[in-house]
């Protein structure tokens, strides 16, 4: 028996050592994936630009909102690489400064919505009793109104400002995650591995976090990434209505809303922030896709 024990120990250690090597190899291969690497570089550059905006913008004071009327509505040139807006402010500086609120706000909204919505969805999906039903009725109540309308109403109550806009948008945003997750959970909670965990005597919370959560994460990650664009736009809409970002400051959504009416003449005013948003959202999606595949052991 003692011999057996040492034999098993040796075999287990050998298996563990080999496994470590295999894992490391896989990680390296993930980083070699070209599109994911490019997306990661773009995201890093964007974050760096947002962080170091005052130092890398060509006209930092215009980025903060100083007007420059004599150079208004200039098309892209060597002085102003991406043109100027209606007050003559450099578009490049505005976009760099705008990324601060847009990216931070967008991430903040979708992550908070997921953090609130996913646990509620897990609970509601696993327990179909009173508590689950109650959660889903509240969710349906929220989903029966347009989310931007609820956002506007809450924003009015909380007062104007970019951070209140973010809070005002989280509130109508989480029910979408709850509904997504609840549906996923209902479809996997009768799987036999959940039954097996119940058979072992594990409680609800263990089952929810060990068996259900990892298996519903993929659609949640996809939804988080797809929601970033709409979240940035929604902050812009609130800003455009005067409820979000206040006047001299900028965010990408606000800039798109402001430029949209004159897109045929001064096209750069809407196109520049729009393109920035497009690139960032695409980069998030590509990177998230690669991350999802790397985390996913089932496919």
């Amino acid at each position: 028996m003692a011999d057996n024990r040492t034999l098993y120990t040796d075999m287990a250690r050998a298996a563990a050592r080999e496994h470590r090597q295999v894992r490391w190899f896989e990680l390296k291969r993930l980083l070699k994936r070209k599109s994911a690497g490019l997306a990661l570089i773009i995201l890093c550059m964007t974050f760096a630009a947002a962080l170091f905006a005052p130092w890398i913008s060509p006209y930092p004071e215009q980025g903060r909102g100083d007007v420059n009327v004599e150079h208004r509505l200039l098309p892209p040139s060597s002085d102003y690489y991406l043109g100027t807006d209606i007050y003559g402010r450099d578009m490049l500086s505005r976009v760099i400064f705008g990324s601060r609120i847009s990216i931070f706000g967008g991430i903040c909204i979708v992550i908070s919505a997921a953090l609130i919505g996913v646990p509620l969805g897990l609970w509601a999906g696993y327990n179909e009793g009173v508590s689950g039903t109650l959660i889903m009725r509240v969710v349906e109540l929220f989903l029966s109104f347009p989310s931007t309308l609820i956002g506007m109403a809450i924003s009015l109550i909380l007062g104007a400002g970019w951070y209140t806009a973010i809070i005002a948008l989280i509130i109508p945003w989480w029910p979408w995650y709850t509904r997504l997750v609840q549906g996923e959970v209902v479809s996997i909670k009768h799987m036999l591995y959940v039954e097996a965990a119940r058979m072992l005597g594990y409680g609800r919370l263990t089952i929810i976090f060990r068996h259900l959560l990892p298996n519903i994460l993929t659609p949640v990650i996809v939804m988080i990434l797809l929601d970033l664009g709409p979240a940035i736009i929604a902050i812009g809409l609130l800003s455009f209505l005067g409820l979000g970002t206040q006047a001299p400051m900028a965010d990408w959504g606000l800039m798109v809303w402001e430029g949209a009416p004159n897109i045929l003449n001064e096209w750069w005013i809407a196109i520049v922030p729009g393109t920035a948003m497009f690139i960032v959202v695409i980069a998030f999606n590509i990177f998230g896709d690669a991350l999802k595949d790397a985390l996913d052991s089932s496919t």
Partner: protein
Amino acid sequence: MSAPSTTTAHAASMPRPLISLDRLHAWFAYDKPFWGKVKTWIKPVNNISLDIIQGECLGLVGESGCGKSTLGRAILRLTPLTSGTIQFQGHPIESLNASALKPFRPKMQMVFQDPKASLNPRMNVLNILKEALVLNREVDPEHHLEESVRLLSLVDLRPEHLFRFPREFSGGQQQRISIARALATNPRFIVFDEATSALDVSVQAQVISLMKTLQHQLSLTYLFISHDLSIMEQVCARVAVMYAGQIVEVQDSTALFNAPRHPYTKALKDAVPIADPLHKKDLGVLKGEVPKLSSPPKGCHFHPRCDFRQDLCQEQEPAPCETDPNSWVKCHFHEQLWKQGALKDH
């Protein structure tokens, strides 16, 4: 207590039951109204009394949808019970709540039909086994890794399989991982719920021989659920035949095959095809439909499809009648049929 009233003299000579079911009911509400009473009940486990003897492999056979799996789950308390009692090693467990059940859970395990679905695709084999090992008090957490290797070797898998994910295994291997997980808690009783049905025949044979070896090595008690009567004869010494939520006959597997005592067992047996092209035989397919579990026929549940029915069958439910020790049949006329040789092969 088993259903046929066992005399005390008998009970003394008989091996102790590991599990004993008495008038067990597990009904499900078909229409759960917001207001008022449930009108329709589905009755997959309807008044079942049965003893599972320590160390035996009891087969449970029946058509699909007759309540076999629900009975297996009911014994493990995975499905809500309506009434009746379950005794495990003499302890009544039918009314224990989740936390009171915890000490019993590791002693009763189950291996499921679909091997792929019974393993979490996000967990590797080591984590799957660890999840069960944690509940085994006899194993020091430090030794989980080597204990997992030992469990894998019990089911003929190798240590390098520890860090693989379920999708990397074949169906037979996945089923063996399930068996290893079931063994990890050092159980006394394992339910195999159609555990070999999803596997092809050669793999089936492997898994069955593995099961048998383990049963002898670890002195386990099995409940082997299947719809396949021919497997039963190889695997189990005693077989219970289930029909429409009730057990109609319990018998030695060889006796059951050679001399069935219940007309339904005979029909089941006749439906097993014989691999001989020259063997021309009327397959003896049963007339009529399987009764609905929500409204089983009055009297004997089998009477509408029975060739030997009489008036009594439609009115009164037959009581279980002991034929041999640990064997009984639920039929009003079993003695008569036996004397006439009506259920013998022609």
